[in-house]
């Protein structure tokens, strides 16, 4: 194949798959702005723009209270999960202590344990200690799920810190906590930023934990609000409304991603995938 031909072929493949990647999402978003689901010539461009679907989805799904609930949970979960992961990752990455290897392996196992293995007892246990239908219950379970990756991620960063930096800091008389706060954290900003974003995305899109732990409609989070709309008998044939509800649920993630995307990619690609 000629050099020119090969280049054209490459662009053709890339563009074809780019369309493949984008079409379902764009089509759904476009249809959510229409009164019927039929797209003009299958192009993901709305024939008309109406916000009726969104208004309907918002009220029937009770998204306003859902956003308040999700935001509150996120505000509690993200800092807690991130801080706890930083502390543990710091210890695993810079200190030598007995049982470090075993403990870290213990956390890594948590990465592959499926959440469905735990939801059954989790519901009954949380009910026994009165943490169902509460913010705290959801937060603690989500933090527990986020810890394995968080510890893994932060340890990977701290392992890359040169020993000389650590030695210099301790020779200056700084305690480990001081070293962490003053010396390492500024350098860890991209890694921490990525972790914050990932934890935020995890809590905002978490479907199964609130589904199991929350029965009281007043405490429903955004994913559950979508379910409220989706399961409503009136909504059964309301495809455009369902699409609108799904888009509403996705907006915070899109915003967070757009704002932090350069950080995110830098953090992901910057670290080695050991």
């Amino acid at each position, binding site marked *: 194949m000629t050099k020119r031909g090969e280049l054209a072929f*490459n662009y053709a*493949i*890339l563009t074809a*798959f*780019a369309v493949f*990647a*984008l*079409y*379902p*999402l764009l*089509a*759904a978003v476009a*249809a959510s702005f229409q009164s019927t*689901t*039929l*797209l003009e010539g*299958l192009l993901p461009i709305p024939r008309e723009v109406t916000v009726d679907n969104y208004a309907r989805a918002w009220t029937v799904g009770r998204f306003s209270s859902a956003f308040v609930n999700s935001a509150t949970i996120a505000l509690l979960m993200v800092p807690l999960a991130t801080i*706890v992961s930083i*502390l*543990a990752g710091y*210890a695993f990455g810079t200190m*030598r*202590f007995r049982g470090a290897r075993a403990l870290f392996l213990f956390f890594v196992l*948590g990465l*592959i*344990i*499926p*959440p*469905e*293995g*735990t*939801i*059954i*007892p*989790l*519901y009954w*246990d949380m009910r026994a200690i009165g943490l169902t239908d509460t913010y705290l219950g959801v937060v*603690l*379970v989500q933090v*527990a*799920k986020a*810890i394995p990756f968080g510890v893994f991620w932060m340890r990977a960063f701290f392992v890359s810190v040169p020993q000389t930096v650590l030695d210099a800091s301790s020779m*200056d*008389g*700084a305690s480990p906590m001081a070293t962490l706060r003053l010396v390492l954290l500024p350098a860890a900003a991209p890694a921490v930023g990525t972790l914050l974003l990932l934890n935020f*995305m995890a809590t905002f899109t978490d*479907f*199964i934990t609130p589904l*199991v732990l929350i029965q009281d409609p007043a405490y429903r989070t955004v994913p559950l609000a*979508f379910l409220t709309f*989706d399961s409503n008998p009136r909504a059964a044939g309301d*495809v455009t409304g*369902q*699409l609108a509800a*799904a888009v509403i*649920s*996705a907006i915070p*993630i899109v915003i967070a991603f757009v704002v932090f*995307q350069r950080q995110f990619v830098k953090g992901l*690609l910057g670290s080695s995938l050991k």
Partner: protein
Amino acid sequence: MTFLGAARSLRQRRERRRGPGFDWVPYLFVAPALAIFILFAVVPIVHSIVISLFEWDGLTEPKWVGLRNYATLVTNRQLRETFLHPITLFLFYSLIPIGLGLLLASVLSSARIRFFTTYRAILFLPYVAPSILVAISWRYMYALDGPINEVLRMLGLGAIARAWLGDFTFALPAVGFVGSWVAFGFVMVLFIVGIQKIPTSLYEAARVDGAGRLHEFWHVTLPGLRSELVIALVLSTTSSLQSFTLVFLLTRGGPGNATNVPAYAIYRAGFVLGEAGLAAAAGVILTLSVVGLVWAITRLDRADR
């Protein structure tokens, strides 16, 4: 006195008082994470094992049945099927994304592609799209009057058009295909990073030997991507056994039992059908399967090296 100077004298004073002994510090740093993790992730698993030995509806007194729930999982045909469905899903979550990922990674990594970052971002998008949006977009795509059927009709293939997610034969592949769509961009990025790590000297050596593109790919690129392939396999194993949100929103396990997967079956058995013991047993089997498979994959990889 400088801050660090003050810290130093404080530390020296503390050290003189403490003297050599057990260094609690690392454990203190690990403790919070460990505590939360054990309390809300590990304890439930142990509890799961206990519950799996009982017959329980969640409300009345549990009844001891020993290993009977596990026997039911093996003998009940529907449950057996449910545990076999992830195999189909695994093929969709691994083979197709890995194949596409390899293709797209080599295309994108070859020289002189403009808009590299744009293409990469677009192809990566399905992986970060929230699962609710993904599920509903594809529910829309697969609808009887949705884009996929419309295209088929326009191509004169209207006879094939159907309600894909309601079809007994095609529902599971349809769900699997959504998984392929989600993962292929991620696997591509994984491979792009891996390809960048392959030393160009290897490619030059191959070229000197007169190797064509295909030969280059097979003997330099593929071996160099070995660890990335392992990661891709591990991740597709775990996601094929989970996929709760997708199944819940697309098909609720239906039609019939066609798209039931262990993750969803556990939820339904435990919270809808009042069979907490059976659900817990399924959970234990699921956990053991995932851990076992991941261990096997990493073992095979290490043995081969």
